């Protein structure tokens, strides 16, 4: 990039917040996805909206691709600058601006870390439910751009269910305001909705208005072990058919159970073919009633139930689930985490299919995930240096997605499309949708500068 352009960037954000040395750039060439790293040409970290606007305008005038990046914990390569350009960090926009406990919303800048936001809300005696696995480091802006999910999605929904309003800049640097602070609002297009899952391709979000909710008064957790993973999967459907919506309903397969137990010695039943971790919450009386019904259902399908009697026991139960990914990660050098999702009634079929695929391609796959909302995480353990095995991994992934679509599911429940899943997009949405998305993108960003090539656009 020319010295003159770099000088302009420095003038906007200050030389302390501008980097163009190869070593600095290399730190923004990747995210949490298993994708080829590509460094940007420069990185800027604006500290106010005015700087954001000027950076955008400079990129537009000089034809420089612009990639917005929060913490870079994306699992589909969404923040990898595949054709270079300018990476704009939002970590400098890290203030929570307002918590309104009367009207139950909070206003936050996009670079605030999700866990810090949730903690701040909890300090006010309220709850921000979305709890993606990366919440300790991901940013609120990133969560909206990817529509992050989490463990509580079954009952409480995902990020999009909490987004009331958004402030963003379009690629011309216009400030766009969508949504607001009221429960009902039908002014203009649903622009917050448009920004959800937009993966940084339609604008640069700087401020969000998020809905917050009262904390449930009571909760009850239990761990249920099954001799057959398919029975465990059927239990998930039965619980929901009984009109019970647990806050969380998580599943771990035998391979994951054994791996977690080996790594942590928590005392998990290693003989179990599958485990369900269930938590019901709400009004104390409702919780009491629901958890008894859940136990009956589990036992009728051969499950053996252990209820957490206190907070400590509850933590111990959740420890197992929280350690799933990490324990699996320690087994082999490369880990590929997928998020194919199906309607929850199809979970047994999906589990069966993953087992078949694992055998067919002779791979190590541990499966755990949010069974209650149909979002499983088949986790492939491999070694990126083994080319033959990697070829089999690729075929297995193709087949997992194919199966998910056959079961009326989706190729991505919560990780996004980015670069990693662009090639599968048409098989789910069809040509018409891609044309529509392409027109929308070209209309808002005619030069194709905002996070180019993602979703195949």
């Amino acid at each position, binding site marked *: 990039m020319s010295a003159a352009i770099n000088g302009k960037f420095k003038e906007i954000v200050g030389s302390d917040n501008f980097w163009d040395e190869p*070593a600095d750039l290399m730190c923004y060439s990747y995210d*949490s996805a298993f994708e080829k790293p590509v460094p940007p040409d420069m990185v800027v970290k604006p500290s106010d909206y005015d700087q954001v606007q000027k950076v955008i305008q400079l990129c537009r005038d000089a034809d420089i691709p612009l990639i917005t990046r929060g913490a870079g914990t994306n699992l589909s390569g969404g923040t990898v600058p595949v054709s270079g350009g300018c990476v704009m960090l939002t970590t400098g926009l890290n203030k929570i601006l307002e918590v309104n406990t009367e009207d139950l919303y909070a206003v936050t800048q996009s670079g605030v870390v999700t866990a810090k936001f949730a903690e701040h809300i909890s300090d006010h005696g309220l709850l921000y439910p979305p709890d993606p696995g990366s919440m300790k480091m991901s940013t609120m802006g990133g969560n909206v751009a990817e529509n992050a999910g989490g463990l509580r999605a079954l009952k409480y929904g995902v990020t999009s269910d909490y987004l009331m309003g958004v402030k963003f800049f379009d690629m011309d640097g216009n400030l766009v305001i969508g949504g607001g602070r009221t429960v009902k609002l039908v002014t203009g297009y649903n622009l917050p909705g448009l920004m959800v899952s937009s993966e940084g391709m339609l604008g640069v979000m700087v401020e969000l208005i998020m809905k917050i909710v009262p904390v449930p008064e009571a909760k009850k957790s239990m761990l249920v072990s099954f001799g057959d993973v398919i029975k465990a999967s059927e239990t998930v459907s039965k619980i929901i058919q009984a009109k019970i919506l647990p806050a969380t309903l998580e599943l771990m397969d035998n391979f994951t159970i054994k791996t977690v137990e080996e790594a942590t010695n928590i005392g998990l039943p290693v003989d179990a073919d599958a485990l369900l971790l269930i938590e019901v919450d709400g009004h104390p009386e409702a919780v009491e009633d629901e958890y008894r019904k859940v136990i009956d259902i589990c036992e009728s399908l051969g499950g053996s139930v252990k209820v957490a009697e206190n907070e400590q026991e509850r933590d111990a139960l959740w420890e197992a689930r929280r350690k799933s990914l990490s324990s699996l990660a320690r087994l082999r050098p490369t880990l590929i985490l997928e998020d194919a999702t199906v309607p929850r009634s199809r979970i047994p079929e999906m589990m069966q299919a993953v087992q078949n695929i694992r055998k067919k391609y002779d791979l190590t796959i541990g499966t755990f995930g949010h069974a209650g909302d149909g979002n499983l995480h088949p986790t492939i353990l491999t070694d990126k240096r083994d080319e033959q095995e990697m070829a089999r991994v690729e075929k297995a992934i193709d087949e997992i997605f194919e199966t998910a679509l056959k079961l009326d599911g989706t190729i991505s429940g919560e990780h996004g499309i980015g670069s990693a899943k662009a090639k599968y997009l048409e098989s789910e949405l069809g040509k018409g949708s891609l044309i529509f998305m392409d027109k929308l993108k070209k209309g808002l960003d005619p030069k194709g500068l905002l996070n180019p090539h993602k979703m195949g656009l």
Partner: protein
Amino acid sequence: MYDDVVKELKELEELVLKCMKCGTCHADCPLYNQDGKEQSVARGKIALIQSVYEGRLEDAGKILKHIDYCVLCGRCKQSCPSGVKTDEIFLKAKSVLRKIEKMKGWQKFVLSIAMEKPELLAKMAPLMHMGLKFGSKKIKDDVFKPIIPIAGGRNVVSVKSKTFADTYGGLNKAKGEEKMTVIFYPGCAANMIYTSWGEAIVETLNYFGVSVYVPEVNHCCGIPAATMGELDLFKKMVNKNIDYFDSLDAKYIVTCCPTCQYGLNEMGPKQTGRSPEQEMMDVVVFLEEVLHADIKLETGEKTTIHFPCHYDRSKDSLLESFVKDNLGTDYTKLKNQSCCGFGGTFSLKHYGKSSDISTSKAEEISTKGFQRVYTPCPGCAMQLTDALAKEGSEADVSHPVQLFYESVVKKS
């Protein structure tokens, strides 16, 4: 030579590949929490090492400054879901990269004096002590603000005119019936600055019937050398100390510096393949778990604890109950559980950044009106003393054994 450097970095591949780039290290990195820069956090540094040996980054010499910009608090390692040994990776990488970018002459000189000429350093102590007395303003008991900003405006605890080893070097016999003999390894900070900690610990151990060996000359644990990329010098210091430990007939090595313990008992054995024969542990853990010492005070003070990064974190709750129950204090856990930001050589090289990290902690201590902050690490104590002085807080920073020594042992 460049090829050798790349080859040696490639030797780290097995350790490096475990990093799945999830970014969990962001959450606990004191530097990333300040600046939000990927260059500051373990994931970024690991990506840099990888990009050199995978041939994507050509000038390896440019990555040292990034890898070196690290407090070495080890919190990334503690929280890493994949078990990436970040400390081993960074120490090795620094020592490899030192081949390209040599340490500045004066730095090497200072380091070699500090490591290899402890007698000389001890002799210089009275001079430093005098300098500090005359060139500074006393702001509270033993805390000074230098008038000439030699230390970047830092409020310092004085270097004592006589080192701890000068006074206590050799065998300090138990009072009454001898239960056992241990070695007390003071580390440089307790030897030269927090000599009162050393005194309190040795006297308290003697009081409980424990005879204590104290090195006549305190040899540094070597960690400052390791953090500067001088791994050979580090190994030399570890060996020198283990030689000393092995020469004595003692059951335990007791210390009051978690970083020295990390250097001599964890990283040292990894690098040298040699461990001390005796079990090494923090003095509070020793008093509680080995001696079951009868320590009971009723101070009623409003206190909190700063947990040092290198402390044996499985003993955090032991330390809490010691402060709460044994010292009889009104204890509350700090909300801010971050690193204090000291990091030894890090705070010398980047005082401003180091100091920023401790600010929010000092604010919390000040706002909540704590009278005393306990910490079992002299480095953390120095850092917090400085931060609290800047915050205008009246809170004292103490070692957990100090008060018992002052009010019981000394009067016995």
